[in-house]
């Protein structure tokens, strides 16, 4: 099959444009100053964390978005990456290896656990698989909390040294935001390119076929077990990469409670808000939700404190207090009114609204158990 020639529009995708602009951001300190003047926060300091979460969300997107398996324990693999970095890099243990050695090991360990978890569980149906992954996430968290000899319990492992790079001294890593900014953005670009190519490869198309209709895909000669396992391993590996970066960025593995169910659900919220399976959507979803947490909420909190009398100490008069409700309502409303996400992938969008006029008659008997897309097609068809 020959791929059609790319139009210029395809070459300059929105995702590429956003990432390109981010690449240029540190070159123009005026934006940084402008933002700092408005919010008293350095955007450049916040962005590396956002990039790490985008990488994590991309990893989750391989499992949930492409392959259609609801994975509710991605934080476990994130934690594994972070703790491998913690064990191999901190002075707590005799290894003290370099970041560049710990990174591939972290990815490999996470991917290995992805395979170990996936091998027995992937034949389970959707909602049971979701629970197994949830259970795995919690078991990992509790184990990290309890194995104090290895993980230092709630204290976490620290200090994780910065990566070794020529011309960049250790003090520069901590004083200037730019080394981490470019390091994390670089990894994000690599992951993004990898996934862009993967989406169009045989494997990526097979995943999407599996998501659409597992039975049909199986009949066409695809091996669902192997494909799901590959998605699980890749997703876990990318999450492990994000974990190594996260620990390096924080210079500590943090408390194991940072890798709990809420983290996993937060990532799922990002995916659903942005658009499952859509890289641009995931990017925007993470930026919106992390931005909400780290930028909007503090600004609104200070605003309320300054303008509403006697608001101190009252939870419902702070923006932070409404965080859970806002996230919850976002999930409910998105599922109800826009299940494809704010910026759906073109494939999903086309299936949901081909030229905005589609009348699909779906048999109510078979409807109950078809896969994601077919049924979204139905709801989409009815709505438009």
């Amino acid at each position, binding site marked *: 099959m020959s791929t059609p020639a790319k139009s210029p529009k395809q070459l300059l995708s929105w995702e590429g444009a956003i990432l390109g602009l981010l690449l240029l951001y540190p070159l123009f300190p005026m934006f940084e100053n402008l933002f700092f003047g408005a919010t008293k926060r350095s955007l450049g300091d916040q962005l590396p964390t956002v990039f790490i979460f985008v990488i994590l969300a991309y990893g989750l997107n391989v499992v949930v978005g492409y392959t259609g398996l*609801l994975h509710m324990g991605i934080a476990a693999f994130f934690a594994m990456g972070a703790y491998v970095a913690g064990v191999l890099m901190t002075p707590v243990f005799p290894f003290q290896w370099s970041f560049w050695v710990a990174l591939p090991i972290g990815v490999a360990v996470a991917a290995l656990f992805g395979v170990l978890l996936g091998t027995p569980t992937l034949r389970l149906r959707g909602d049971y698989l979701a629970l*197994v992954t949830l*259970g795995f996430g919690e*078991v990992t968290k509790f184990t990290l909390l309890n194995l104090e000899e290895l993980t230092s319990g709630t204290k976490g492992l620290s200090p994780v040294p910065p990566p070794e790079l020529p011309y960049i001294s250790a003090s520069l890593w901590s004083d200037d935001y730019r080394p981490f900014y470019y390091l994390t953005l670089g990894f994000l670009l690599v992951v993004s390119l990898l996934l862009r190519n993967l989406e169009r490869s045989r494997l990526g198309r097979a995943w999407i076929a599996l998501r659409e209709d597992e039975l049909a895909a199986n009949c066409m000669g695809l091996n669902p077990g192997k494909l799901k396992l590959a998605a699980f391993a890749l997703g876990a590996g990318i999450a492990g990469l994000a974990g190594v970066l996260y620990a390096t960025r924080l210079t500590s593995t943090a408390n194991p409670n940072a890798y709990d169910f809420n983290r996993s659900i937060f990532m799922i919220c990002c995916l659903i808000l942005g658009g499952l399976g859509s890289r641009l959507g995931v990017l925007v979803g993470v930026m919106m939700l992390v931005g909400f947490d780290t930028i909007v909420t503090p600004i609104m909190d200070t605003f309320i404190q300054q303008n509403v009398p006697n608001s101190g100490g009252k*939870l419902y008069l702070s923006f932070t207090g409404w965080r*859970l409700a806002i*996230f919850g309502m976002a999930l409910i409303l998105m599922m109800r009114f826009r299940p494809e996400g704010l910026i759906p992938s073109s494939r999903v969008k086309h299936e949901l609204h081909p030229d905005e006029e589609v009348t699909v008659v779906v048999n109510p008997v078979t409807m*109950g158990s078809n896969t994601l897309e077919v049924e*979204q097609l139905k709801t989409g068809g009815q709505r438009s």
Partner: protein
Amino acid sequence: MMLLFAQEAAVSSTAMAPWLTQLLQAGLDGLAFGALIALIALGYTMVYGIVELINFAHGDLFMLGGFLALTLFTAIGWKEKADASVLVVVLAVLGVMLVSMIFCAGLNVAVDYFVYKPLRNAPKLAPLVSAIGVSFVFMNAGLFWGGAQDVNFPKLVSSDNLLDKSVGLRLTMQDVLIYSVTIPLMIGLTAFIKYSRLGKAMRATAQNPVAARLMGINTNFIISMTFGIGGALAGAASIIYALNINTISYTMGFQNGIYAFTAAVLGGIGRIPGAVLGGLLIGLVRSLGSTYVGEKWVGVLIFGILIVILVFRPTGLLGSPTREKV
């Protein structure tokens, strides 16, 4: 049964070996907690049996019921403990339990109507994600209601040992309260589902919604009713939990919800006797686990059981194998 056995064993041997006392005590505590978990698990299993939805918000509904009970008791003026005769306390607890049950039932029905019902024909994961959303909203409501810290619940039921000191075991009024609420409710529910007309309709809807509709059953009403009954059981569970533990917090829904869900899966999700059996087993695992393995490993143990059961016997202990419809 096991309770009676334990008591008999306790009575017959006046001086038991310490290890036996420890084992029996852990068993007794486990059964009481398990009965409570079973009550919550019933709500999961009934809803799952009928709409195949893992109602993630069920645990948090249970939590809201606890806060309502606290508010009601505070309104009566019983903040620390009751200063009234036993009869008044019993009546008040019953009354508050009834209000809490109605509240939870109504809330669950309303959530079903506004959130899950429009998604009835959507892919299965859509209502599951919505349920997580509802759970967050409930948690936030609990946060506003009771604050971020643990809240003390009035100590209305004594925790004095009812058994003679020579026995060496502890069985408190709080444990008796659990049994005296859970056992009648479970028997009533079983009888309702087995013998009443509506119960029959529920079973039919669970088996095949389309065929049930063709037979003239108003399946939407049946689904609402299932949510209502499940919610009512959570409301009842919440107040006996609060009277037993004496502290409540807005996060108690998640953990107990997961315990209850594990119980439902362990027993065979969709099966009512399964939820009861699973609940008792989970209670025993929790209590024996914290006695012999260590309290901090209980979470790992319970989630480990959840994973192992789902992987090796997804139908649970009492479930019959079903194949995913294609």
